[in-house]
């Protein structure tokens, strides 16, 4: 899977699709958010939901896969991308989740872009930093 772009490569994590990847990603990006002056709680929750969605849904019926988390500052924003090489966003009638992850991400981030195909899903989020942060 394609690595992080140079612009947002302060953090570049390759994680397995397992529950422990959620706190690992949240911790790493949370520390960067704190250093950058972003709303750490918002970033932590959004990252937790995005990685959690990938772990729960992206690899149903498949063995293995990779979740890549990239984060870095872009001007007055912290940009975070969570990308998986799973099955894409498809209905999951047996979902163990609440189904609010994507809605939460949209409310927490200043801007959210989601791209999904049969090759996987990419969630890109930006959060204001410094004086721009809430």
């Amino acid at each position: 899977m394609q690595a992080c772009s140079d612009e947002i490569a302060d953090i570049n994590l390759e994680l397995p699709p397992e529950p422990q990847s959620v706190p690992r990603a949240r911790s790493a990006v949370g520390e960067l958010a704190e250093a950058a002056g972003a709303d750490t709680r918002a970033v932590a929750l959004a990252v937790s939901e995005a990685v959690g969605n990938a772990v729960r849904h992206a690899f149903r019926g498949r063995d293995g896969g990779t979740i890549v988390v990239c984060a870095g500052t872009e001007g007055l924003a912290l940009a975070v991308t969570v990308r998986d090489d799973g099955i894409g966003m498809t209905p999951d009638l047996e979902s163990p989740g609440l189904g609010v992850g994507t809605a939460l991400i949209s409310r927490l981030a200043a801007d959210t872009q989601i791209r999904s195909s049969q090759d996987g899903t990419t969630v890109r989020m930006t959060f204001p930093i410094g004086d721009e942060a809430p």
Partner: protein
Amino acid sequence: MNAQQEPLEIRVDRRTVGASEVTVVTPVGELDLANADELSALLDSPQAAATGSLIIDLRQVSFMDSSGLRVLLMAAKERGPRFAAVVGPESAVARLIELVDVADRIHAAASEDEALLRIQAASADAGG
């Protein structure tokens, strides 16, 4: 937030309110997809189910995502008015509950005393 997530600590206590007993479960740490099943399993155990009434005190939960919230909603659905959650003001947990707008569904209270009073009132209404 630590690089390696600390194990979730869960304390279980009993309180007596009038003629009723209430189980108070206090998770300590971060609550997410990696450990929400631990809390869910404890809530389903005889240890937590013995009293019928349950309070989850979330004031020592430093982070919670929708995986943890799902466990609370399931517990609230099973126990109805015999369930309440104690939520610290302006905490990360309070923010999540506000964002998803479920304070009423989990019978959120600001203190254990308030939660106990709610359950006591519910027990009295139900004749127990």
